C-alpha cells in the first residue's frame, strides 16, 4: 500500500530523483534495510550539525535519535515536495532549535569546558598525534582553534548559528538553506553576511594566523 502511494507521486515529486523516490517508498513500506541505510547515510551529518548547534556531544547524540524517530513518524506524509535530505534537515533543525529553547528556559548556557574535547569523542591530544602525526604544537594549535570556533558559534544567535553550520560546515546551497529554515534566499544572504561578520570579530586572532599562511 505505501509503496503504491510513492509510485503515484513519483512523477509529481520535483525535489526527488527516481532513486530517491524509491528509497522513500522503501521507508514508507517500513523496510528494515531502508532504515539501516537512512541511519548510515544521515547520522554523521546530523550529529555534526547537532553538535555544532548544541555544543555538547551527549545532547547531540540524544537529539539525533529523536530526529530519526520523528523522521519515521512523519515519513508517511512525505510527498516529495523537497529533496529527502532537505526534508530530514528541516525536521533536524526543528528538533535542535526546540532543544535550544528548552535549554534557554532552564537557564543553561551552551558553554564548553576547556577539558572537553571539541570533536566530542573525548580523545586526548596524544591520540591525535599518534593517528595524524602532526607536531604537538600543531595539535595544540588546532585544538585551540576548534575550541575558539565552537565558542564563537555559541556566541551567535541561533538563527545565525544555523546559517553558518548549514552553509560553511555542511556546505548546503542557499536554496537548500532557505528550504530547511523556511526563509527566503534574501534572508539567507543577509543572515549569512551578518553571521560571518560576527564570527570575523570573534575569530580575528585566528584570521591573522590564516593570512600569514
Amino acid at each position: 500500500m505505501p509503496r503504491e502511494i510513492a509510485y503515484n507521486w513519483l512523477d509529481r515529486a520535483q525535489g526527488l530523483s527516481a532513486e530517491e523516490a524509491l528509497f522513500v517508498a522503501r521507508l514508507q513500506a517500513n523496510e528494515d534495510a531502508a532504515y539501516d541505510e537512512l541511519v548510515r547515510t544521515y547520522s554523521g551529518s546530523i550529529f555534526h550539525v547537532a553538535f555544532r548547534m548544541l555544543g555538547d556531544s551527549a545532547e547531540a547524540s540524544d537529539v539525533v535519535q529523536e530526529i530519526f524517530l520523528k523522521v519515521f513518524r512523519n515519513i508517511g506524509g512525505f510527498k516529495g515536495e523537497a529533496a529527502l535530505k532537505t526534508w530530514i534537515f528541516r525536521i533536524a533543525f526543528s528538533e535542535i532549535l526546540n532543544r535550544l529553547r528548552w535549554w534557554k528556559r532552564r537557564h543553561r548556557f551552551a558553554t564548553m569546558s576547556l577539558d572537553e574535547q571539541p570533536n566530542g569523542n573525548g580523545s586526548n591530544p596524544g591520540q591525535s598525534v599518534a593517528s595524524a602525526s602532526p607536531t604537538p604544537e600543531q595539535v595544540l594549535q588546532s585544538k585551540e582553534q576548534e575550541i575558539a570556533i565552537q565558542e564563537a558559534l555559541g556566541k551567535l544567535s541561533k538563527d545565525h548559528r544555523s546559517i553558518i553550520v548549514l552553509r560553511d560546515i555542511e556546505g548546503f546551497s542557499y536554496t537548500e538553506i532557505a528550504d530547511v529554515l523556511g526563509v527566503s534566499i534574501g534572508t539567507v544572504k543577509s543572515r549569512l553576511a551578518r553571521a560571518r561578520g560576527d564570527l570575523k570579530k570573534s575569530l580575528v586572532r585566528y584570521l591573522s594566523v590564516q593570512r600569514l599562511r
Partner: protein
Amino acid sequence: MKRAECSSIQRLMSPFIDCMVTADEAELVESHLTGCEPCQRQMQAYISVRNLVARIEAPPVPEDMVLETRVRLSHARNNNFLVRLENRLQNLFKPIVVPVLLGTSLTMLLFGFLLGSLTSESTVLAQDHFDGQPLSPLFQPVHTDDPNWVRIASHDKQPLDEQPLTIEAHVGKEGRAIDYQVLHGPQNPEVNGWIRQVLSLAQFSPATAFGKPVESRIILSFVAVRN
C-alpha cells in the same frame, strides 16, 4: 561618498565569496576591490573565516548512538499496530505454511485420482467378480408376481418343448433388456418372437458398481413347465 560605496560593497562580500551575486554585482565588487585596500582586507577576512569554519573537524559519530538509534527506531516501528500484527502473523504461520500447503496439495491429488476412477463408465459383465464376490443379480432368481410373467408361464401354446432354452440378455442401466443372444436351445421365428415378447415385458434390477446402476449381461434359462 567613498565610505558609502565601501559599505554597499561590504554587504555584497559574503554572497560574493559564495558566487551568489549577479554578474553586474560581481563586476562592481571586483572593480572596487582593485582600488580599495581596506575592502581587500575585509574580503580576505570573509574568505578566511569561511575557510576556518569549513575546515573544522567533523566529530566522530559515537558508535552507541548509531546502535541506539537503530534500536529505538526498531521499537518504534514494532509499536505500530499493523507492523506488530504482521510480525505476529508471520511468526505464527511461517512454520506451518509449508506443511499445510504440501498436505493440501497431496490430498487434492489423491481425491483427483479417486474421483477420476469413480466417474469412469464401465460395463459389468455376468462373469465379473468384485473382491471375489459375484454380482448379486446374477445369482438371485427372478421372483415375480407380475401377471404378465404368470400369463407367459402358464400359456398353453408355449413354443418351448422339452429342450431348455438359454439366452444371454444385455440389460441397460434402467433394467430393461436391450439385446439378446440365444446361447443354447431351439432357434426359430416362433421362439424368437416369444423371447422378444418375454424380454420386452421384463423389468430387471440393474446391476450396480459402487452403488451406481450400470449395464450388465445376464444369462436366462427357460424350460417348459408342464402342469
